[in-house]
C-alpha cells in the first residue's frame, strides 16, 4: 500500500495518516488502564475446604494427622483439648508443628462462630509457618 501520488503532491507536508488523534486516544486508554489497574487490592489468606481424599490420608498415616483447632460459638479456641487464648494459638501450633512437621492445621469452627476469630486462627497458623490450612464447620 502506498500513498496515492496525486494527493501526496497536493498535501506536501503530510506523510500518510495523521497520528495525533490516534495518539490522543491511545494515551487516554493508557491512563484509564493505569488508573483502574490499582483500584481494588484485597489482601487475603488462603484456606482450603476438606475433601474426601484428605480423610483417607489421615486414616492411613497418623504421623501426618492434621492439627485440630476448634473455634466455638462464643469465640473461644481449643487446641489439643485445652482452651487457649488467641495469642497463644501460634505457640501451640508451633509446638505441634515441630512434632508433626508435615501436618496441616484443621480448623473446626462452630456454625455460629465469628469469622473474625477464624481468621485470627488462620493468621496464627501462618505465623507458625503452617500454610496447609483447612477450614470446616461442625455439622
Amino acid at each position, binding site marked *: 500500500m502506498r500513498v496515492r501520488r496525486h494527493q501526496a503532491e497536493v498535501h506536501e507536508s503530510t506523510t500518510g495518516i495523521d497520528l495525533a488523534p490516534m495518539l490522543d486516544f491511545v494515551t487516554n486508554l493508557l491512563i484509564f488502564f493505569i488508573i483502574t489497574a490499582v483500584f481494588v*487490592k484485597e*489482601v487475603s489468606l*488462603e484456606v482450603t475446604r476438606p475433601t474426601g481424599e484428605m480423610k483417607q490420608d489421615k486414616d492411613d498415616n497418623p504421623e501426618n494427622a492434621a492439627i485440630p483447632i476448634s473455634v466455638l460459638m462464643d469465640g473461644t479456641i481449643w487446641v489439643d483439648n485445652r482452651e487457649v487464648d488467641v495469642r497463644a494459638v501460634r505457640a501451640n501450633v508451633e509446638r505441634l508443628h515441630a512434632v508433626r512437621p508435615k501436618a496441616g492445621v484443621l480448623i473446626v469452627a462452630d456454625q455460629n462462630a465469628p469469622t473474625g476469630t477464624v481468621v485470627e486462627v488462620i493468621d496464627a497458623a501462618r505465623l507458625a509457618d503452617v500454610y496447609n490450612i483447612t477450614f470446616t464447620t461442625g455439622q
Partner: protein
Amino acid sequence: MRSQRHAPESEDHGIDLAPMLDFMTNLLIFFIITTSFVKEAGITVSKQAAMTPEGREHGNIMIAVTESGELWMDRQRVDFRRIRSMVERLAVERPDDSVVILADKASKAGVVARVMDEVKIGGISEVYIAADDASGGE
C-alpha cells in the same frame, strides 16, 4: 511511480512520533493484559486484621458476607443458589479466576463455609478469605 520523496520531506516534522507511539502501545497492551477484571462485591465490611495476608493477582471475584449474613456479589445482594450460577458463568469466561470472600469479622463461620462450598461446586477451587493487613507494611 515511487514515493521516495517522503524521506527528505518528513524531516519538517519536529519530533518523530513513531517510537513514542510504539512504546505507548506496548504500555497500553501491558496494562490491558495485566488488569484483572475485578468483580467488586459492592459493599464494605469490617474485616479482621491479620499479620500474614498476601496480595493476589488473580483474586478478582469478590463475595462479601456481612455481619447479618447477607451475601453481596457483583454489586448486588444475592442468594446462596445464585452464587453457584454466577461463579459457574464467571469460571467459564475466565477459568483461572479465584474468589476472595470478604467476611465481616462478626459474620458466622457457617455462612462463610457454605459460600466456599458453593464456589467450589461452581467450579472455582481457589478461595481466599480477605483480611486487613496489620503487619505495618513489612
